[in-house]
């Protein structure tokens, strides 16, 4: 019953705010004005807006410091301990990681996953956005459809995929059978996809496993909509005249694309590349929801490995060590992208 009163309160409150809009705005204005003049009277504000900045930054940065930044310091700190033995280990955990095949396996899976998802997502979403940009009618409809997976929770969507991809009696296998194709184990197939495609000519441990490819496919499906929307926004922002001018000058369609559209779109590509790289290195939900964690090494990326070290083996120090390595890798990768791609980015 309590919750209904709460709801009622919200409704009444919002209704009265709407009704009293004008006087409220006036009050707000005068309050803001007063606050502003307070800030400006501060002596130390003459050269800069420090007092104002501290006030505005405090809520957001306070929370980030406690829940975003402190964990990093904590991870750095406990990575120097052998937490199982309860002793200071110095660089011991880092040395252990260097010799740990599962750590390197995790890196391998992370890299496969990044290579599998980032270019495919970028290309696919650019292609779709480009087509949407060309057609006139139905753009809104298609954009909505393509964005749909992105708004659904990974847990719910992965549940659907898991059932569809059941190894013995899933819908996808029924489809394969109907098409006369060999059925597959999908999410529990640990052999390499190259091995399966070449009929055993390539060794089963080479390349990503079919299970990993299923996860990659899931994430391409799940995340492409984000790219589509952003590319579309970028494309719409390109002045039409530029393109038309190029066409009048006799540029062929692909020349328009490479000489006009892509350079103008480069900030968008740059942004998406950096964001999706960070996301790819932090991927967890799809791995966790599609496979059972820690069951098989072929779908164990670094984050899953960290997770199992922290929560299943209770190896806090070592888990933190791997986490620190991962953070360093992400920072490094972002800096490299910044340097390499940044040179190519074209700002008006």
């Amino acid at each position, binding site marked *: 019953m309590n919750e209904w009163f709460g709801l009622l309160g919200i409704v009444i409150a919002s209704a009265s705010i709407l009704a009293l809009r004008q006087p409220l705005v006036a009050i707000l204005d005068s309050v803001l004005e007063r606050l502003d003049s307070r800030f400006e009277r501060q002596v130390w504000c003459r050269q800069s807006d420090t007092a104002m900045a501290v006030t505005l930054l405090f809520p957001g940065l306070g929370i980030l*410091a*406690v829940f975003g*930044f*402190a*964990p*990093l*310091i*904590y991870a750095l*700190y*406990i990575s*120097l*301990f*052998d*937490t*199982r*033995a*309860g*002793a200071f280990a110095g660089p011991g955990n880092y040395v252990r990681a260097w010799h740990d095949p599962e750590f390197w396996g995790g890196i391998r899976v992370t890299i496969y996953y990044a290579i599998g998802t980032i270019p495919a997502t970028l290309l696919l979403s650019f292609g779709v956005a480009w087509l949407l940009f060309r057609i006139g009618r139905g753009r809104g409809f298609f954009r909505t459809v393509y964005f749909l997976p992105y708004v659904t929770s990974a847990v719910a969507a992965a549940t659907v995929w*898991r059932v569809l991809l*059941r*190894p*013995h*009696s899933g819908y996808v296998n029924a489809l394969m059978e109907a098409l006369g194709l060999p059925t597959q*184990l999908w*999410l*529990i*197939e*640990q*052999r390499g996809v190259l091995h399966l495609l070449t009929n055993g000519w390539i060794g*089963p*441990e080479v390349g990503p496993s079919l299970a990993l490819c299923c996860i990659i496919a899931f994430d391409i499906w799940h995340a492409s909509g984000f790219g589509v929307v952003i590319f579309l926004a970028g494309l719409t922002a390109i002045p039409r005249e530029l393109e038309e001018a190029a066409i009048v000058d006799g540029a062929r369609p692909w020349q328009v694309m490479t000489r006009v559209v892509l350079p103008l779109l480069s900030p968008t590509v740059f942004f998406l590349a950096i964001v999706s790289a960070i996301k790819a290195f932090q991927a967890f939900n799809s791995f966790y929801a599609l*496979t*059972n964690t*820690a*069951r*098989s*090494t072929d779908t164990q990326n670094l984050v899953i490995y960290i997770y*199992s070290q922290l*929560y*299943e*083996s*209770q190896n*806090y*120090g070592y888990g*933190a060590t791997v986490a620190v390595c991962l953070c360093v890798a992400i920072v490094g990768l972002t800096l490299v992208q910044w340097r390499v791609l940044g040179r190519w980015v074209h700002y008006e």
Partner: protein
Amino acid sequence: MYRKLAGFTLLAVVITGCGVPGGPPDTQGTEGTGFRPVDANAALLWDRQTLETAELIGQIADEFNSSRNGMPVKVEHLGGYTDINRKVSVSIQARTLPAMAVGYESMTSEYARARAVVPLDPYIEDPEIGMSEEDLADFFPGMLQSNIYPQLDGGMYSFPFTKSVLMMYFNKRVLRAAGIESPPKTWDEFLAQCRQIKERTGVSAYAVDIDCSTLDGMIYSMGGELVRDTESLFDQPPTIRLFELLATLAKEDLAYRIQPGTYDDREEFARDRAAFFFRSSSHRPYTAALFGANTDDWGMAMIPQANPEAPVTVLYGGNICVFRTTQEHERTAWEFIKHFTSPEISVRWALGSGYLPIRKSAASHPDMQAFFEQWEFNRAAFDCLPYARPEPNLVGWQEVRTLVERAAAEVMNGLKEPAQAAEALKRQADAAIAAAR
């Protein structure tokens, strides 16, 4: 700028309560330092039952609460065993724990290593709320035995709670279609029947859920042992024979794996797309629900053996452990455990769920007798109990479980040769056990 950075760092370190890096200093805690209870006013039980069985255990707790004054018991569903395990691990770090939780022996030993669980011996011996000699003698000895942890000063750190044994479920419709009269008694017979079923009906006979307890039971039944002291024995012939069997079954398409964490094997079985699956006896009511009135179409039996004269299966299912919180929480938890494992409730729980009664006297209880009469296989699991052996309760076994499952999956997937997989498994398992010590 540097001053600000330093300020940030300082703030962060202060807030994270630095000086307590992860587990270790916690584990050095003295006897007096308890953990904070999650709920100060109730003894929480972190449980894994869902749907009907969750309702039943909730009912039992409610009756327990209204039968006495004092702290009430509250049952909370936290997901499966592994979910509970993770949650408890994190909670140990935060030094905030429920009164009790269900789990495998391997999990309890991890908690005990962090000094988070209390030994139950003082409670059992307590003249007022303890158990008498006859009371204790009424439990199946194997069940009590697996809760005594030799590595941890031989204390009883958990108590049998919802126990079951590994069984073989067989689909008579498929067996009949393949012209098979009775389920296999030995592993050779099992393989032969699988081949016959494939040949005559085209059905891949065995739906495999890769689960460590199941594999442990199979190794036992192959005549094997899992550990000697703190050394694993996976490189011995029984494990290799099991892996060879699994490889053969997979290669000839006589068996197929299901997604771990699901119960698709039971579903496939009920749809006649499998003749066998191996699961805990607690799956009986769920399987029965799938078959409905066709009670003559399926059954349960002792798993196949290397030597059917001396059968062995694995005893598994959950134990319950009591966390070191407050005197009142601990005491309430123990009293609830005592209540739940009393002869009367034990029978009621067994009948309402698929678990086994954990007391010998249950067999003569009139309700149990009536239940045995109802269907020819209702007795099967109970009859297996004398042959059921617990899994190791070594510290570090929790990690070994993952390794065993990985090895079996790799063997069935054709990634590793059986002997090679067994060899690697032994090495990894020994390393994990050594690292945990």
